């Protein structure tokens, strides 16, 4: 059980790191990974992304994580770095189960 939890935590950490690195490179963020809090909102007051940046996020999901998002998807997953990570993990788990 414990190792399960540990691997879940490690997996989440890994996804969070990759998400932040992807954001930094693709969207020219001036922060480094450690400066981005997991709960930072992507839009508005947080990283201040806009709708065009959202397109680039979709490309990142596809290229980095192999996740294709349809237009009809509830955009809630784009709320923060954390919610994006959760979304990626749930999608990956789903794919693995299939």
């Amino acid at each position, binding site marked *: 059980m414990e190792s399960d939890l540990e691997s879940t935590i490690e997996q989440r950490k890994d996804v969070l790191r990759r998400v932040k690195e992807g954001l930094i490179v693709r969207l020219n963020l001036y922060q480094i990974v450690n400066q981005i809090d997991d709960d930072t909102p992507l839009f508005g007051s947080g990283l201040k992304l806009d709708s*065009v940046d959202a397109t680039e996020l979709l490309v990142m999901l596809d290229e980095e994580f192999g996740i294709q998002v349809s237009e009809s998807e509830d955009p809630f997953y784009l709320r923060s770095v954390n919610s994006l990570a959760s979304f990626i993990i749930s999608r990956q788990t789903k794919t693995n189960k299939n």
Partner: protein
Amino acid sequence: MLDRKRVVITGLGVLTSIGATTEEFRNSLLSKRCGIRPSSRFSDVFGNVCASEVLEEPKYEGLAEGLQEKLDKAALWAYKVGRDALVNSGLLGNEALSTSSLIIGVSSAGTEAYMPLLENRINDFSIDKTRLSGSFSSVCSVVSSLLQIRGGYELVATACTASTNAIGIGFDQIQNNKNQMALVIGTEPLYLPTIAGFYTLKTLHQQACTPFSGVPGMSIGEGAGALVLEEYQHATARGAPIYGEVLAYATSGDAHHETAPDPRAKGAAQVMRTALANGELCPEDVEYINVHGTGTETNDRSETLAMKKVFADIHSIPVSSTKSYIGHNIGSAGIIEFIACLLTLPEGKILPTLNFGRARPSCDLNYVPNEFQERNVKVFMKNNYAFGGNNCCILAALPGNGRPNSRYHPRRVAITGIGLVSSLGFGLEQILGAIRKGTSGSALKTWRPSHKGEEGIQDFEDWISSNEMLLQQFSDLRKKNGDQLSLRTHEVDDRAVRRHLKRFDTRKANRISTFALLAGEQAIANAGANIRTTGKTTALIIGMSKGPQATISRYVESLVPDPRRARTFEFPSSLMNAIGTFCSISKGIKGYNTTLANGFNAALGAMCYGYELVRQGVQGQALVGGADEIFHSALHALQENHGGLSPNLDEDGFRVYDRDQSGYFMGEGAGMAYMEELESAGDRGGPILGIICGYGKSCDGSYIDDTNSQPSGQWLAKAISQALDEAGLTVDDIDLVCGTGWGTVSSNRKELNGIERAFMHRSHPVPLVNYNGFFGFVESAAPILNLALVLNAMKEDEILPIPHTRSFETKNLAFVSRKERLSVRHALLVGSTEGGNNYAVVLGKGAPYE
């Protein structure tokens, strides 16, 4: 008050998917032919993608044998439509073209020559092509030379409004008494980087676009168009055909976002209102609007809103989009759509918006759905909008409209602020301090030619060795510098620049944009101006040479190996207008916004245009200048090598006008000047640093013929005399000349010959300076860096010497080689582009003024 000159259209030329002649294009429009279909060139990359493509290579009449292979399509198409328009107007080969100007609008220029590297077709790579068609403004140099148009050229690079704005600049060129005619061209062949950008932004429609109705999305297209603009009396005197009349125009900046239009449509509404005011028209005079109408959700919604804001009775005005026939032709869109109006409105018919289905919720105007509407239109409006919030509106009329001329009160124009970013520091004070101390801003850079890490672009070494000409090009440089490529450059610490900036989006700022923004902020502060209150009537005109090179490179790299994964972030910021619009967005500058990418010394073109806008009173102020960044890459090293870097790598190795040494060091930075109406500057107690008394423009027209190794400078001399004429001065009134040449043999000779020729009849040799040696050659911004030192000399009565040069060329000119006390009442700033365009600006001493 002065009457504006009436500017009529006396020649047309066009190339689109639905017509390679005006006749064919008119017939296609009248039979509602849509040229958008599954792309034959890009479908293998992007799957089912549609485009309006010119698939049949047009005939290029009058082109010398063997030349076609060396030119890119942007230049060839521009030549084709430009020539057609001149033939149509009865002007081809006419002597009057030597005093006509050429304005070309294009978004993606100088691209084709490098595409083989990107698309891994290395054998198609041609050095000749990079030479003749490898720079952004080469299309102007080529066309002016082939058609012998020598009144000076400008390359307008405001993306999707480029050719619309070009029509406006052509109109101004006729207002200022310098040209009777202007040939205006829009040209835009579609290349991979452009379609990939729109594809990844997910803006492309699956089929032909359906503006204002049905599924949102745009269709991309390509083509070219040309207009001969001519002063009315001149046109009627020679019995020219008249297709219509340009009544007025305006541009504006949204100052909102790099791709999205302002949802409140303020900038789009403002540009229409300004154009109406310029033409002394009211909204009720407009009987038809040819809209931008791309078909995207955001454009169609905000454009509809903008028209509702401006026209109280908008429901009675038919509006339609020509993009439903030929897609979005980007840089050439505006002029082709304008021509479509001139060809169909005389039939008493209004062009319908094709493919019109169910109107979208926010779109409730009369879009002339699918069927022609019968109406006799006299006055119509043409609008275009671009990335970064560049907006442009033209008001035009059909012949015999009986409208009176609009009028204006000519203003005197003062320079009240200067901002500088250079390797010697930021601002005049720092720079003067560094010069006094003898500080050098340059440093030696060693750069390994092996350029690994650019995936897909072949290893640089292999690339060079696979091409004999390249091998030779680089071996010269290498022999001198051993294995490594050593360069001395003047670079700017961009972290320091960022620390000085107040409010800006750090994420969206690339180096060149931060340079421009800092220089702009300084110029505004220097002038003591409050941009919050004047931003709406302040123009921002930026001259560009190589533009945002690092961003372009990053974007281009993202196209390899899969162009469907192009970086959407860099797509808009890799465009030439990105720097100007970034500054507009950061500072809230919402007046006229234009990018003129004329190459070396492009800031002079920006100065002349800004001056014209303030002189005619259409803008209260203008912020003008240029910005450059050095980018170390294989391609650019190649370009620099064409240009002739100095082989002497000592600190003082850049010696302008030196008899024994040729070449320059690359520099980077920015220079911006704040100009405003002299009277109001005086009223508000602004510092009058100098007055612009007049300007002149010309072009050599010898770009293709490179046997001309001894440039006579006769056309530069022409520009100088034109500037003196406007200023009402003679050569004896000029106390100081400042050149902006870059120290290569050909640049030196041309500039010195031109100045010597113009000042031949002066009683004593004229004192001459050139300060590029202090800064390295900062390609587009050099004129403003020089201007700052000239204005300072006028203020202090003390002239700094030309740096580093030891033995000057033998000329009948008084090279200033040591510090001199001299009172300067009038100075002359001259400069040329690498493509052979010439400028001269007469400067008057600043306050206290008479």
